[in-house]
């Protein structure tokens, strides 16, 4: 294979990873903010955290909207990360493609389940 990294890298063409790089960081920031929002609500709850207090955090409409966005962001973030792992370690094309398809099905299924739980509250 010809050398295509370092100073020999071909820098023309599409899909050089900037979009994936950027979307992974933006979704990460959203999830960090979500973590702090949930954490703050848990910490500022008076008394022990039982079912009422815990479910109450996710019952507010703004929290549902935020959580919904975070579920989508999470699936997108994990897709970029798992695709990187498959691309780095799995060389046979048939296996890599199969694992990528499995990842998409897994993530879409999990996102659907999480969204169902969220919006029936």
């Amino acid at each position, binding site marked *: 294979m010809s050398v295509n990294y*370092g100073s020999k890298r071909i820098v023309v063409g599409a899909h050089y990873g900037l979009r994936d790089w950027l979307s992974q*960081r933006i979704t*990460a*920031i959203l*999830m*960090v903010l979500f*973590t702090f929002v949930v954490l703050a609500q848990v910490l500022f709850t008076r008394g022990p955290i*039982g*079912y009422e207090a*815990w*479910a109450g955090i*996710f019952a507010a409409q703004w929290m549902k909207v935020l959580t919904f966005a975070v579920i989508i962001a999470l699936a997108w973030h*994990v897709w970029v*990360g*798992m695709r990187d*792992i498959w691309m780095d370690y799995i060389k046979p094309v048939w296996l890599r493609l199969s694992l990528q398809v499995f*990842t998409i099905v*897994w*993530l879409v299924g*999990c996102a659907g*389940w*999480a969204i169902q*739980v969220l919006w*029936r*509250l």
Partner: protein
Amino acid sequence: MTELATPSRPQRPEFRNINAFKDLPTYRLPLAGWVSILHRVSGALMFLLLPFIIWLFDTSVTSEYSFARFSALFSAGAGFVPGWFFKLVALALIWAYLHHIIAGIRHLWMDVAHAVSKEFGRSSAIVTLTLSMALTAVLGAKLFGLY
């Protein structure tokens, strides 16, 4: 690749196509490298356990009844699997989340501050590993009822 003109340099082992069994046991990974590979491992772990995480979310918020099932998993267990095993799984997830978020914030900081020196790589790796393991220990002690 830069050719170094100093002939007195000692021969260092060169690793290409690292063999997991031959090279990895003797490969001295720098701390930043440990943060990096553990970032991957923690991410993959959370990916694989995603259904379990959503199950925890589902049972903990859906109803009083399901909340009781959620709590019972960690005290009474499920089937032949004892509760402490699920606590261990939860602890692994706690570590994975903490490591991933701290290593991720380290990445974001390097992106915005252009902090890409060797020294910062090492010192921030120490902070990441220490903080994630210390917080895991604190939360793990709580999880297993030590305080």
